[in-house]
């Protein structure tokens, strides 16, 4: 197992280099650059423009720029954001945790909703509960999250005035100990609910179909023939098997959780990576844009590796050696 993990980690190096080439190429071929807005300023002289280009190194051939970026990155230097004038690594670290809160909070909420409903839907197939669950899941899958977010803002934020609709905490007020946590939690409820509920839909369908397949297996009949309670049969013998494919889904969803929250972070003015990522695209802030995307690529690879490792823990048939 240890050897396997080391091998996988080594394999990730060429993949990440490939990703870095792709990302760099795509962004440099895209029209515009971080200074484009300055160039349209009529007060700028061509000399000034030339100076700026040289200062940032944009006048040099693309491959030179790439190798500069790559070697700096290998030294742990991701460059400085052109817009925010701060090191990219500092910016990512600052924002990462607020996004983490939202991402893992919503994932946890999705699982908490999806797995029990999926299991009950499967064990009571074609019952009213199953149909209600299916309708709920299809709503979660088909309602765009921004629209759902608007509905929630309109209803809970503006109409009922129960919950704050923007930011991660109330601005300008410093609360004493328990209240600062409560304040932050209240700000999290709406974005969490939107992300959690929309994410739960597909996860629930996944759990349901996986469970339906498992409860038809011979070993479930064996478990029943042993005289086990139906609860033990379902939640011990069946669920453990049904969750194996769900784990793959979770591995893949790790990066999606981060980038997928972009729209929701913007709608709720959440100070996370999503908003920063969006702004970096709009501003063509190359160092920041590339830094964030490399971070997401690393997250994708880590998610896949984690999924593969956890496979071995839940399914004894899978052994890496």
């Amino acid at each position, binding site marked *: 197992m240890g050897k396997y993990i080391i091998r996988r980690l080594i394999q990730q190096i060429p993949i990440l280099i490939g990703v870095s080439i792709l990302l760099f190429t795509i962004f440099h071929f895209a029209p515009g650059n971080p200074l484009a807005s300055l160039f349209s300023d009529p007060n700028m002289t061509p000399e000034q423009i030339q100076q700026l280009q040289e200062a940032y190194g944009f006048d040099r051939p693309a491959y030179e720029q790439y190798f500069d970026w790559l070697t700096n990155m290998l030294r742990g230097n991701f460059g400085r954001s052109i817009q925010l004038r701060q090191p990219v690594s500092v910016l990512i670290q600052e924002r990462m945790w607020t996004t983490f809160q939202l991402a893992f909070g919503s994932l946890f909420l999705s699982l908490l909703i999806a797995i029990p409903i999926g299991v009950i839907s499967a064990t009571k197939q074609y019952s009213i509960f199953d149909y209600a669950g299916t309708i709920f899941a299809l709503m979660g899958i088909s309602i765009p999250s921004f629209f759902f977010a608007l509905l929630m803002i309109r209803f809970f934020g503006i109409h009922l005035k129960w919950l704050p609709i923007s930011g991660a905490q109330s601005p300008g007020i410093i609360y004493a100990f328990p209240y600062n946590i409560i304040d932050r939690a209240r700000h999290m409820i709406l974005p969490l609910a939107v992300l959690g509920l929309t994410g739960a839909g597909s996860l629930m369908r996944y759990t349901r179909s996986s469970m339906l397949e498992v409860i038809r*297996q*011979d*070993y479930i*009949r*064996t*478990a*029943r*023939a*042993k*005289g*086990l*309670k139906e609860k033990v049969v379902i939640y011990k*013998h069946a669920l*453990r*098997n049904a969750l*194996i494919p769900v784990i793959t889904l979770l591995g893949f969803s790790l990066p999606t959780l981060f980038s997928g929250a972009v729209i929701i972070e913007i709608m709720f003015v959440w100070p996370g990576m999503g908003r920063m990522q969006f702004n970096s695209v709009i501003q063509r802030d190359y160092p920041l844009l590339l830094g964030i995307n490399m971070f997401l690529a690393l997250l994708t690879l880590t998610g896949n590796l984690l999924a593969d490792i956890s496979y071995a823990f*839940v*399914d*004894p*048939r899978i052994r890496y050696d």
Partner: protein
Amino acid sequence: MKNLLEVKNLRTHFYTEDGIIPAVDGVDFSLKPGQTLGIVGESGCGKSITSMSVMRLIPNPPGKIVDGQITFDDRNLLTLSEAEMRKIRGNDIAMIFQEPMTSLNPVFTIGSQIMEAIMLHQKLDKKAAREKCIEMLNLVGIPRAAEIVDDYPHQFSGGMRQRVMIAMALSCNPKLLIADEPTTALDVTIQAQILELMKELKEKLNTAIMLITHDLGVVAEMADYIIVMYAGRVVEEANVYDLFEAPKHPYTVGLLNSKPNLQRTADRLEVIPGSVPNPLAIPPGCAFNPRCPHVMDICREEMPPLESIGGERKVRCWLHTKKEGAK
């Protein structure tokens, strides 16, 4: 001797979109302690559904036991609550299945799967259950039992897995073991070993066995008494010698004739013409009449009763039952 299991007029029907399937339609039989009963018939004749009905493991919906009485140890299983039934399953009545490859849960060790039943029914603690489990694995002839209890099912071959299933089934000393095609999925050598093992354990533990199979060789080897089923009904019952010596029902005759025989050389095996009737459209009268070489008018009109023809023999055929007023 008193009967251990008595099944009377068992009817298990399946309610599907296309109509009602009478998978088991009035089956009677009984079994004494320590006896082996063979239930023989083609696929779809209702033999597995009969055994699942005894365990009350018919998936509902679509299936339902609509009528009958199953008396086990003086209790009617059909009127027991689900909780009382759970105390019987795996404890008094245990079951082994056709597919050893898929009958064990792939994500738990075989030890934990065997211990589960022991801890549940015998109220032993984990340590004692583990010892009992190793003892059972030794009993079914698994080498290095103490080492392999913590192995997973995929590390075993089909024959070994069936031994594990037998160990699991017998771990609580059941009075009745239901074996649903226990050797069908195994190759011939392993088949013989498993049958030998079952016979040996039956002698040792005095367990009654209900052996479900389509393999006449297996019943000849194992069973004391045989019932032959066709289209959800018993068509013939007899002890093993009488049945093989002088089969009465044309279907049984056909089954025995279609077996390869060492004393007879033939290019082709004999077949029973036609095929098993569609369970949604069982022909009126005797269900076997479209395939029967001795069919008479009355066979197409009226279902013959299962009647005793002397001794323990019973047959459901107009050839052997004289209807009053009929020629």
